[in-house]
C-alpha cells in the first residue's frame, strides 16, 4: 500500500513526530511504500539541523534525516509554515534576505500543493498531531 504521512507537531513537546517515525519504520518494514512525509504547523520544526538534544536522548531530527537517506523518502516542509517559524534553506535565505540556513539533510521546502498531491496519490494519508 502507498502511504502519505502528515506531521503537525514539533519535536520533543509532542509525541506526534516520534509516533510518526515509528509508524514510518513499521510501514517500510512491512514492505509498503511511503509516497511523501509532509511537515506542517509546528511540524516544520522537525527539520532544523540546529537541534541539540542531551546525549542520552533521541535525536529526532537526525533520525528523520537518516531514515530518509536509507529509504529515499520524500520529506517536504511547508514553505509558509517554515517561513513563519524560521526554517530556512539556501533558496529561502536568498529570497527573504536571511543570513543563515538551518534545513536538515533529507528535507526540502515546498508548497501545500505537495500535501494535496500526496493525498491524491497515496492510498492512505495518516495524520500525526495533537
Amino acid at each position, binding site marked *: 500500500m502507498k502511504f502519505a504521512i*502528515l506531521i*503537525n507537531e514539533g519535536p520533543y513537546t509532542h509525541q506526534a513526530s516520534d509516533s510518526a517515525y515509528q509508524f514510518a519504520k513499521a510501514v517500510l518494514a512491512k514492505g509498503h511504500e511511503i509516497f511523501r512525509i509532509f511537515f*506542517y*504547523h509546528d511540524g516544520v520544526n522537525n527539520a532544523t539541523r540546529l537541534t541539540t538534544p542531551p546525549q542520552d536522548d533521541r535525536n529526532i531530527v537526525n533520525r528523520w534525516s537518516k531514515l530518509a537517506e536509507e529509504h529515499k523518502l520524500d520529506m517536504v516542509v511547508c514553505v*509558509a*509554515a517554515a517561513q*513563519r517559524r524560521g526554517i530556512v534553506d539556501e533558496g529561502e535565505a536568498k529570497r527573504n534576505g536571511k543570513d543563515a540556513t538551518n534545513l536538515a539533510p533529507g528535507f526540502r521546502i515546498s*508548497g*501545500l*500543493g505537495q*500535501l*494535496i*498531491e500526496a*493525498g*491524491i496519490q497515496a492510498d492512505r*494519508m495518516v*495524520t500525526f*498531531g495533537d
Partner: protein
Amino acid sequence: MTIKKFMMVNRKAPYGTVYALESLEVVLIAAAFEQDVSLAFLDDGVYQLKKGHQTKGVEMKAFEKTYGALEDYDVTKLYVDQESLAGRGLTADDLCVPVEIMSRADLGKRMEEQDVLLSF
C-alpha cells in the same frame, strides 16, 4: 487529475492556536487543485465560525472573512456538529456563514465517505 474527497476537520478555537488559520490555507490549496473539499467543525472548532471576530486587542490578523470567501472557491460544504454548537450556547444565527448543522452520528457518516481526512 484525480478528484478525491478531502475533509478538513476543525476542532480548535481560532487564534488560541494557529491550526484554524493554517487549516484554511490547506482548504484553499485543495480547492485550487479542484478537489472535492468539505469542512467539518466540532468541539471548540465551532468558535471559528462565530460572527464578529475582534482581534485588534490580540494583534492578530482576523480571518473570519475567509470563511465567507470560500464560496468563491466552490467550497460550500461546511458541516457543523450540533452537539458542539449547543454545548457552547450557540445556534446557526451566531455563525458568519451558512452551514449544515448535523448530529454527531451523521457527521461520522460524512467522514466515512471521505478519501482524505485532515484533522487540525
